[in-house]
């Protein structure tokens, strides 16, 4: 069975705020859910499936209760920031199998305003956490920095090449009035920002923002009756890459598995991708993911991003036209949902005119969760216009 053409993304919503000191997580989940349903032209009573990560409370139960949903299908798969890209694939599978018609996916969090309440992994007593919790790993950046060191060692990737990724994101973010960082940056400015965990500097890191987002995935029958333009789901892949019995290789990501599966199901190649949302927790995340998705050979990511390759609308592979996690938004320290949202905007022709890719018919959204420095979830989604 394939999900190709069996489901559509009919509604999207990105919370406009980046700092939300006065609302609960549940409130933000509710607001983004309402926003995505309104975008689709649907209501809460239409929803028969709900997907969330651990930001929502007790699995799917808390928000089902809060929102008064009547559900026949739920999924609370937790793969960190890639969860929502996984959820789109699982929603399409469930719709294709006749389990549901209208799936709601939400994310919310307030890392800017509050300590990371409700997130897993903070010192849980599993051996992996114990053996990695002793050495001063200072947030996610430490693991990604070790990946960057190794990538530089094996392939000659440079800090200036990493900086190009941030610069491209900043050139897009200047057109997004909601972006957390809206000033265009230069490579020199990125290289002058303070070192956080070598070789990664402050500007190699994504922003820390409150907020969230939501998606509505529906059956072809439901999509047909809506006035709003939907994005067709063409292909999906997911994978867990773990430490492999201590033989971990930090120069690649789970995209080496999720990418080919998504391309195969979609029946398209890298050359067909008009726009790509690439998870950008850190600049190195983008470099490795571009290689693993086959946009360039392994080790060539640093050279691939030169000469404005990622800059919309004319670059070889326009990416993250909302400004990405690096400049726009990384709600709940998780960027997967905004990756799907911007891909749908591009396919609808509703990205900012300055960064809208002309005739965008095939788009890719890739999520990364956990850490490329230890264990991670990867998920690749390929979308098309309604007639793709």
């Amino acid at each position, binding site marked *: 069975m394939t999900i190709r053409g069996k489901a559509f993304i009919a509604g999207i919503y990105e919370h406009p705020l980046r700092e939300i000191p006065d609302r609960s997580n549940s409130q933000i989940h509710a607001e983004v859910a309402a926003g995505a349903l309104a975008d689709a032209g649907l209501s809460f009573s239409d929803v028969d499936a709900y997907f969330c990560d651990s930001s929502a409370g007790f699995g799917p139960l808390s928000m089902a209760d809060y929102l008064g949903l009547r559900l026949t299908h739920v999924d609370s798969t937790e793969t960190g920031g890639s969860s929502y890209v996984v959820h789109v694939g699982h929603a399409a599978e469930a719709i294709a199998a006749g389990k549901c018609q209208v799936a709601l996916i939400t994310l919310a969090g307030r890392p800017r305003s509050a300590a990371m309440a409700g997130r897993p992994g903070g010192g849980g007593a599993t051996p992996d956490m114990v053996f990695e*919790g002793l050495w001063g790993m200072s947030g996610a950046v430490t693991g990604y920095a*070790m990946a960057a060191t190794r990538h530089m060692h094996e392939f000659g990737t440079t800090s200036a090449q990493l900086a190009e990724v941030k610069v491209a994101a900043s050139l897009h973010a200047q057109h997004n009035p909601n972006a957390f960082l809206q000033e265009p940056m230069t490579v020199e400015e990125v290289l002058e920002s303070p070192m956080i*965990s070598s070789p990664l500097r402050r500007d190699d890191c994504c922003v820390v923002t409150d907020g969230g987002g939501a998606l509505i995935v529906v059956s072809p029958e439901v999509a047909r009756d809506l006035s709003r333009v939907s994005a067709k789901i063409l292909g999906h892949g997911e994978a867990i890459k773990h430490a492999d019995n*201590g*033989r*971990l290789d930090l120069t690649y990501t789970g995209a080496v598995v999720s990418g080919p599966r998504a391309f195969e199901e979609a029946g398209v190649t890298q050359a067909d991708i008009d726009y790509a949302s690439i998870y950008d927790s850190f600049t190195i995340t983008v470099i490795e993911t571009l290689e693993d998705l086959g946009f360039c050979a392994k080790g060539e990511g640093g050279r691939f991003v030169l000469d404005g390759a990622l800059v919309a609308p004319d670059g070889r592979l326009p990416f993250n036209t909302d400004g990405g996690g690096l400049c726009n938004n990384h709600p709940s320290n998780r960027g997967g949902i905004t990756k799907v949202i911007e891909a749908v905007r591009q396919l609808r022709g509703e990205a900012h005119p300055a960064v809208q890719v002309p005739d965008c018919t095939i788009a890719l959204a890739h999520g990364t969760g956990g850490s490329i420095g230890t264990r991670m979830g990867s998920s690749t989604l390929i979308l098309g216009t309604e007639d793709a």
Partner: protein
Amino acid sequence: MSTTLPTPVPVSLPETEEFWAATAEGKLLLRRCDDCGIPIWYPRPFCPVCGSFRTSWSEASGRGTVYTFTVVHRSGIPGYREALPYVVAYVELAEGPRVMTNIVDCEPDDVVVGMPVRVVFHDTGQGSALYRFQPDPTATDDGS
């Protein structure tokens, strides 16, 4: 400098009790699979390679090379934030596994990928010690 790194007490789980007890005596143990022979990391009584539950302890050589590392310049972790800058690394043990650790007893800027290192133990005072690694001047120059 690295000698001032804190010594947080590891949470001991049933399957790692002997591992941590051995560190207090200056021994780095590796769990090995009795069926396929591969050293297992992190320690667990299950072989993730062949699926066997027949495993046993053996002592590691305590030698290896730096697979990768980062010099941490910003940290909010109590104890560590007072010790900035410090080095977090993966050391590839001579037996194969790449283990997360700190590199100590040298300037952070002197650490390079491939550098030979040997284990040192920093006692927690609670029946365990942290395995960290220092430059190994006795190593032959065959680090990769």
